[in-house]
């Protein structure tokens, strides 16, 4: 049995060579007719206005912060699920193996509830959209 991560590395190389190969084939086949007009970005056929890289309200900033916490938490749950069954079969009590995880998930769920109540878990409307809604 060889080291599986070497095999995964081999597949990663193949997985990159396939798209690179397709790019190379296309490079040989495709024409190149550079013109100024067709290089402008698509904006429903109009002449593009302004730059795209501006300061921009993404409207889910708090959700993204919450995601970081919950993402780390899933990583911490992984090893627990792996040992759970074998620990039970080896005679470890249910309260000892399940209890701490219930407390851990409980804290997270309480945190989620708190964030939910404070309006962090939602798509934040911009002040302008909010004003338009009030006017209606």
């Amino acid at each position, binding site marked *: *049995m*060889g*080291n*599986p*991560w*070497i*095999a*995964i*590395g*081999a*597949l*990663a*190389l*193949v*997985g*990159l060579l*396939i*798209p690179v190969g*397709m*790019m190379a084939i*296309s490079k040989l*086949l*495709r*024409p190149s*007719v550079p013109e100024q007009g*067709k*290089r*402008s*970005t*698509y*904006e429903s056929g109009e002449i593009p206005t302004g730059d*795209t*890289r501006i300061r921009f309200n*993404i409207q*889910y900033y708090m*959700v*993204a912060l919450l*995601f970081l916490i*919950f993402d780390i938490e*899933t990583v911490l*749950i*992984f090893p627990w*699920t*792996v*040992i*759970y*069954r*074998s620990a*039970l*079969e080896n005679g470890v009590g*249910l309260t000892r*193996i399940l209890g701490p*995880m219930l407390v851990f*998930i409980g804290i*997270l*769920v309480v945190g*989620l509830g708190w964030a939910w109540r404070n309006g962090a*878990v*939602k*798509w934040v409307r911009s002040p302008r959209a909010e004003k338009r809604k009030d006017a209606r």
Partner: protein
Amino acid sequence: MTLSDTIAGLLGLNANDPLQFFLAAIIASAIVGTFMLVNVAIAGPWAKRKITAAFTDRIAVNRIGPFGLMVIVADAVRLLSKELIVPEEVDRPAWDLAPLVIAGSALFGFAVIPMGNGIQVADPEAGLAYVFAVASLASLGLVMAGYASNNKYSMLGGLRAVAQNLAYEIPLVLTGVSVVIFAGTLQMSEIVAAQTGTLATIAGIPIPSWYAFVNPFAFVLFLVANLAEVGRNPFDTPEAPTEIVAGYQTEYSSVYFVLMYLGEFIHIFLGGAIIATIFLGGPAGPVLPGIVWFLIKIWAVFLFTQWARSALPRVRIDQLIEIGWKGMLVLSFANLILTAIIVGVVV
């Protein structure tokens, strides 16, 4: 025995020597990679059109070759020979790398998928963790594409892709992990082996103990989260053709467009392969060889995504955040704890 080991044995290479094993693994990877590309080639230009046409009562491609199958070759040549238009002021390295990340990362996942008849490139102990990790790499490519294109539609598409992944990544992983509580391992071959027993016998037909039957609740949750992960209706907000043109892929043409499209389809098949492995017993099934059952299962998941695409309306992006965080996340926590309690009581 993985495919890499088998090939090393056939060629008389020493599997313990890193370089010789790498060579054998390259051949194994080429076989698996080509196999998946053939699937995608059938699915993308042909099957998708035929399925959508059947749902909307049309005929679709039928001119070139039997059942219009030769459209695959025609489309490949047509798309690869298109001119590559590089829009003004794109962020060059990122714009070129994004299609590579999207198409490549989806292929990486197939390294650990057991496809039956000993076809599996590698079988590491952390297989399930690895496959979840590489499957979510694609969203990095989407953000790169969205930001680098210098197009407002692309930018919105990229940002929506992030919002969607934030909302669905955790329910997806938590539900996937609930299977590990039953199996007690992250190794893909072991998870498949744990599903070989018989759950019950109904009218003389044995029902296998696939985790889809053992825990149907988790299976449904995972199917829904997977639809969001691969960005198909009702969760196709990042592309949303009627709102933001084509989202992150608006500015891509020629081979770059092919790679984005290809990556999307490989991703759907990777989602199908994960579902097949952890919920549907992998390549298990009666009479037919394992690889055929594996194909039937991943194509069934593909058909399901296409059905959802034709039948369900798109949810709004703010609704999507609410469904993900206030519905799916809570349900997936409930599923995890319930699974743990059931296993604790039964064992």
